[in-house]
């Protein structure tokens, strides 16, 4: 793996900053929130100081129910992201389009069999604690999330 060498010794965790603090605080409360421009009503993600469409600095945070569809994905079969990822192989990284706010979000997909994943598959957000401070928004295929909520 030395030949790629873009990895770290441990899994990197987000460090909330001035722009992203609200988002990560919401994740800790099991809520997915997306910024909406007060001036032009556009939703945007990831968090940013100005609306890239109209440059307004005024925004409000809106909750997104976390239902979405897979626009593309890839399956890591090798721990190119670093040895800390070895136990999770194979794992799926996906781009999800959220249905309610329409924003794209990159995340990890929790599933038993990556071969069952396809573009267009409906997914639902779940919240996974990654440390004492950080909760990551990940996604599961909708059928699996329904089974999980019944259990």
């Amino acid at each position, binding site marked *: 793996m030395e030949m790629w060498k*873009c990895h770290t010794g441990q899994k*990197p965790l987000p460090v909330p900053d001035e722009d992203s603090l609200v988002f990560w605080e919401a994740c800790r409360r099991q809520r997915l929130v997306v910024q909406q421009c007060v001036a032009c009503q556009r939703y945007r993600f990831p968090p940013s100081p100005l609306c890239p469409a109209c440059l307004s600095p005024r925004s409000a945070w809106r909750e997104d129910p976390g239902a979405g569809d897979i*626009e593309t*994905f890839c399956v890591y079969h090798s721990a190119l992201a670093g040895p800390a990822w070895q136990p999770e192989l194979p794992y799926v*990284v996906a*781009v999800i389009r959220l249905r309610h706010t329409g924003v*794209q979000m990159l995340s990890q997909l929790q599933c038993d069999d990556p071969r069952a994943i396809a573009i267009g598959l409906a997914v639902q957000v779940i919240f996974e604690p990654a440390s004492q401070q*950080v909760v990551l928004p990940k996604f599961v295929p909708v059928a699996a999330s329904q089974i999980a909520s019944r259990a």
Partner: protein
Amino acid sequence: MKTTQTAIVGIGASRVGRLRGMSALHLTLEACRHALTDAGLTAGAIDGILTRNLDMDVTYMYSQLVAKHLGITPRFATDINLGGATAVAMLEQAAMLIATKVCRFVLCAYGENRRTSWAAERHGRLRMGNEDFEECFGLTWGMGPHSLAAQRHMHEFGTPSRSLGMIAVAQRDYAVRHPNADFRQPLSLEAYERAPMLIAPLRKYDLAYLFDGGAAFIVAAQAWARDHSAAPVHLLGFGQAHAGEHLAYCAPMVTRTTTPATQAGSQAYGMAGLGPADIDVALLYDDTTYGVLVQLEDFGFCAKGEGGDFVAAGHLGPAGRLPVNTHGGNLSQAHLDGMLHVVEGVLQLRGAAGLRQVDEADVALVSGLGGAFAVSTAAILGRDSR
């Protein structure tokens, strides 16, 4: 055919591969030395210097450091870093400096020991900007976004994995003929398909490794080149286009199946008064095989979505009608952010590419693709200056 009134008058490259014990600075200076010799210039003639700051050892004003070690006092010096689009962006910047008469001779150089660097252990690592919303989900920069984009392209157009394999094999066929390529053992399509998926849908041979190496080139006015240069290669046109995105938060660019090469290509073709049919050799920046495939479409060698069929028809490689990455590319020669793509373009047009020489190579397209798919650069090089 038109021209920018500038020309590449010198090229140089260090050895490439796994060069433990050679610093990034050493590799950079080695390439500069060769380029000066090739151009027949002394270091003192250089009045412009463009370098790329280092990945493994983030350095303050690297261009000044290189100038100091070359013993020169340039009129203009700066670092340019557009990832894989860097080399062609340097070429464009150099041409502007020459055309405005700010400089007479601009040296562009980049060398790094990304494979064996000690500095990474000393200083930690480069921040790519995607730590908070991408890396925490296990996405790696470069290869990860390319895998996501390849999957989308396959979904929309039925692009077969086998076509990606044919790109890897074609480039290896050239690298086998290159005395300064790191991977010189032949690769078969069967071996490609047997190799493990690393980030599905991409396999081992779809991905470019990190290398040690350095390369440089010198740009001067065409008028000087005509009188003084043994083998000038003329700059006919440029393009540079940004998608307004960044490697961090790669989602939009990996679901779109196009790159800014569409615009960069139009600009370069327009400036040169040429089109895709005029290109004899294409040196397409290749972090992955998919990067080559999508640029074949975006630079107009085939229609959008037909890259898979175009490659499957056998057009690439030594026996094909569009020789692509005749040096082996990032995939098989060495990965130096496109510096070696420029060097190969010059060698081909000089007729000095040895066993991998393309017959009657008059016009070359050299591309850059950086930040996954955030920025494309394009340069059209010509043997003639008409």
